[in-house]
């Protein structure tokens, strides 16, 4: 018990910038216990971020179009997401008769599981990491592209033409944009010499990667927007073409899970961008996790700004942008990064 309390104390000390403990230092019987604590922590962070982001998205959308946004429920409309949640919980959740019931019901659970898993991988500050993986970035990309399967399950299981088309488009889009995204990240991995997200953060103590890799940052922003299927790449939910894409047949809490997972993924993707390009939790004066949250929300505001400015582009142009523009540019960027690293090593350390 004393060990547990000590470990808990050390864990909370991590929030004030003192790295103390991780899973590797814990006692064997505590592994399972800690796994639960981390799971609950990741889930709480997930839920809180979803609530904040739904409010922020609607408010910012209003501000960008000279409206006020939600302002009736609570101060500044802050309680609006809770109001929505109560409304959506009280709704009936009908399963369509023609649906493939198991797949139909499994898809929202799967998409939520995936987005909570992504929260477990991020280093929120020095010493605050639920899961410390040495192939963190690889695992993050692998998990985030699993979203495709959940979306296709939803599209297929609904047995509806709109859902299926939306699901198919999502698969085509997300898988295509995985490639420029991974290629833009490889440059960062080459610079920091590690796939570990914590090591990538530590490598940016003096200089943020955005200075060294500006082209990769632009490619990352574009492909992140496409991965999140947000405007200008929101063909998967294009209201004018098919009602709501893959979640047309969903209602009640099952729809809410898709909706919340979308916003949760927005935070996860922005956090990844902050870790890779904007120095992660590095910053003066304030504790690391405050810097991390501040930077992530600034990055989210940037993504929202893009979303509420640009219009949806045509499907073939979206694919053309990916295969004919982004992938060649990111490959050239990779080549230049390699040459640059070798030149730097030659001139500073005298070796090739």
């Amino acid at each position: 018990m004393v060990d547990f309390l000590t470990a808990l104390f050390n864990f909370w000390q991590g929030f004030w910038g003192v790295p103390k403990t991780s899973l590797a230092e814990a006692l064997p019987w505590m592994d399972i216990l800690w796994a639960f604590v981390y799971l609950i922590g990741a889930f709480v962070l997930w839920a809180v971020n979803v609530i904040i982001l739904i409010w922020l998205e609607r408010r910012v959308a209003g501000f960008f179009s000279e409206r006020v946004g939600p302002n009736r429920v609570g101060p500044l409309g802050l309680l609006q997401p809770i109001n929505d949640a109560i409304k959506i919980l009280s709704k009936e959740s009908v399963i369509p008769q023609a649906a493939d019931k198991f797949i139909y019901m499994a898809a929202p659970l799967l998409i939520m599981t995936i987005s909570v898993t992504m929260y477990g991988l991020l280093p929120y500050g020095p010493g605050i990491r639920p899961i410390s993986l040495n192939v963190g970035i690889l695992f993050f990309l692998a998990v985030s592209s699993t979203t495709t399967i959940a979306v296709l399950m939803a599209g297929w299981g609904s047995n509806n033409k709109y859902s299926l088309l939306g699901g198919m488009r999502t698969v085509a889009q997300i898988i295509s944009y995985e490639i420029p995204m991974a290629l833009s990240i490889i440059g960062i991995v080459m610079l920091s010499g590690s796939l570990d997200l914590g090591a990538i953060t530590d490598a940016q103590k003096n200089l943020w990667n955005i200075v060294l890799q500006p082209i990769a940052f632009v490619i990352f922003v574009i492909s992140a927007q496409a991965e999140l299927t947000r405007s200008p790449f929101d063909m998967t939910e294009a209201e004018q073409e098919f009602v709501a894409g893959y979640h047309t047949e969903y209602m009640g809490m099952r729809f809410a899970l898709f909706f919340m997972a979308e916003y949760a993924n927005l935070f996860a993707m922005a956090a990844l961008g902050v870790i890779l390009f904007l120095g992660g939790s590095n910053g003066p004066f304030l504790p690391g996790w405050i810097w991390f949250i501040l930077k992530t929300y600034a990055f989210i505001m940037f993504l929202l700004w893009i979303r509420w400015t640009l219009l949806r582009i045509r499907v073939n142009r979206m694919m053309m942008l990916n295969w004919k523009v982004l992938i060649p540019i990111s490959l050239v960027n990779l080549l230049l990064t390699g040459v640059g690293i070798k030149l730097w090593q030659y001139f500073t350390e005298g070796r090739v």
Partner: protein
Amino acid sequence: MFGLGILKGMGITLKRFWMPKITERYPEVMPDLPQRSKGSFTFNVDTCTSCELCSMACPNGVIKVEWHKDEAGKKRLDRYRMNLGHCLFCGLCVEACPTKPQTTIAFQGDFELGCWMKQDIYRNWTKEYPAAPAGVSASQPDATQAAPKGE
């Protein structure tokens, strides 16, 4: 340059973000409407000549004018009654009114016309005459009528 349009668009939305919002915060902040915007009506009982041109111009039969003739055979207004439940707010009555420039029936900016009771939807204006000599009193408007509304 490629992508310049995106930057321009993002500049526009950023400017919009900080601009004052055009949303009307209606119940808390009343909108500042022009004097003669098409809300409810005003009616001037003293300038009305009881010509009934407004009543004839009305496409829905909203307006009912009640009058009597005085000793000189001249029309005198008793009561002016509008059923706003049928009114289109087209303004043909205001256009038809011959008492120019300030028409007897005119628009005013007051737009909160909702009411709970059906009888509240009527607008009545009654002209009160000074006590007349005996014999004419039969044509006087009924004193027990509802008080004029909408003024």
